[in-house]
């Protein structure tokens, strides 16, 4: 998943070491011994909803379309006063636990004393491997590597001339296996990655966590609470995403960004999810004022389960 805060950053000159990144990813994949796995962002009876700010925690057959709008403090003419991003990511399973994501988007900038502009973002691709799935503990962990293809977007709206590669790890843990009563619907997810930039671009460390309370889990695993049908599909969620530079490129900003995004995800198990979150920036580089992100996620594996769009390309053996 593309870092949604990329456009808030400036860059410095940094030498990209591809071999070093490859080694890190290889070591991560070797060190995490595969266990029983399957192909969805679910661990046992825990369904993890699609995330709006953090990367999705597991590979799947899905399509998601987030729209983000964030106000900024403009001082000089041409400074942006608001940035609105329209993104789309297609996620495809290659095997039951290995998938690829392809994503792109448009950025619209409103500017101070200048006309607004719209341009393409850089294209990006991500490979993700679900390494650990422990259904009884509602735990899953994936390793991933993402590449942003530099120069494929419009630099006028912030797309970088140089690309970047981000190896990372994601996880999800439900608390349903713990004897904590009405707290069992709680779950946490997390992400950590290192965005290694190519050429004259700053490299960043990225990390984030989310905490979520699944009402569907409450109603199906804990207690039959008398609540309206609409509420039964809600999962209140709060995401926090953080980036900080790890290299200094002369002449380019090196600002840390931190966004807190509380909101709600809605799903009734019908093959789609709708999420909306407030984007609360906590640093000047992140934004100025509260933004909003909304996302529609289409579960192709649910809606088209027997087509190639909805199932892994390679399945080990045919079921009878």
């Amino acid at each position, binding site marked *: 998943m593309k870092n949604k805060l990329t456009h808030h950053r400036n860059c410095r000159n940094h030498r990209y070491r591809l071999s070093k990144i490859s080694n890190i990813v290889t070591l991560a994949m070797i060190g995490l011994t595969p266990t029983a796995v399957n192909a969805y962002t*679910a661990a046992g009876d825990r369904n993890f909803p699609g995330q709006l700010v953090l990367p999705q925690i597991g590979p799947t057959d899905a399509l998601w379309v987030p729209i983000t709008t964030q106000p900024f403090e403009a001082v000089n003419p041409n400074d942006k006063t608001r940035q609105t991003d329209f993104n789309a990511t297609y996620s495809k399973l290659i095997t039951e636990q290995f998938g690829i994501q392809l994503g792109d988007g448009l950025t619209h900038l409103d500017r101070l004393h200048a006309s607004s502009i719209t341009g393409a973002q850089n294209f990006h691709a991500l490979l993700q491997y679900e390494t650990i799935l422990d259904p009884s503990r509602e735990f899953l962990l994936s390793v991933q590597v993402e590449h942003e293809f530099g120069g494929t977007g419009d630099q006028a709206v912030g797309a970088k001339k140089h690309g970047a590669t981000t190896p990372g790890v994601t996880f999800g843990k439900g608390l349903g296996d713990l004897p904590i009563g009405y707290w069992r619907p709680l779950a946490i997810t997390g992400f950590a990655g290192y965005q290694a930039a190519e050429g004259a671009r700053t490299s960043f460390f990225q990390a984030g966590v989310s905490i979520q309370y699944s009402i569907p889990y409450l*109603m199906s*695993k804990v207690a039959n609470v008398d609540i309206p*049908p609409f509420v*039964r599909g809600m999962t209140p969620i709060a995401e926090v995403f953080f980036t900080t530079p790890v290299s200094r490129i002369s002449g380019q900003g090196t600002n840390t960004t931190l966004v807190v995004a509380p909101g709600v995800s809605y799903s009734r*198990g019908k093959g789609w999810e709708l999420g909306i979150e407030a984007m609360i920036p906590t640093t000047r580089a992140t934004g100025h004022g509260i933004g909003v992100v909304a996302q529609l996620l289409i579960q192709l594996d649910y809606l088209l*389960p*027997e087509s190639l769009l909805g199932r892994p390309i390679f399945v*080990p053996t045919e*079921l009878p």
Partner: protein
Amino acid sequence: MERKLVGVLFTIFGLIFWAGAAAATPGTVVGVSGSCTDHGRALNRGDVVQIGDTLDVPAGGNLKLQMADGSVISVAPDSSMTVAAYSIDGSGRDVRLSLARGALRAQVTSVTGPSTFEVSTAAGTASVGSASADWFIKAQPDAAQVGVLAGTIDLTSTETAQSVSIPARWGTHLETGLDPVLPRVWAEREFNTVIRLTGAYP
């Protein structure tokens, strides 16, 4: 002309007779292992299964039924299933099975006309939501579990009346008194487990 008319009449009467016979005879035992019984009567290959029959399969046994509509029902070891209703005729199908314990696989064929094909357990009822389906249901003391190989199955909680639709390759389960768990993709090993459970015949 008269010959043609007689032929058509014979065909119509034949179809009516076949439909009536099919309605009266829901299914036939085509595979049995272990001491499977129907109300205490030992079941053998070729026996007819009637509406109201309760079929018990012991631990280590298996039972396979060929139904009048072409559907195949495979009952797993340590199961008890009752045929509450099984009617099939030119106007549609109405099948209601009750699974007190154990598991079964239902390979449901498509028919012309409206169709109801459902299996009830203590926790909830699973019904075929597509024209045909190949699916599993497992009844546990306080829960029911459904996995779908082909087609769509709707699982509804007896107590809360909330339901979920389960597409092919997906599954879920339902605990007594609660909503169904949101479905998820089943791994191949999960399907293999229930296939082995319902598929061992001599």
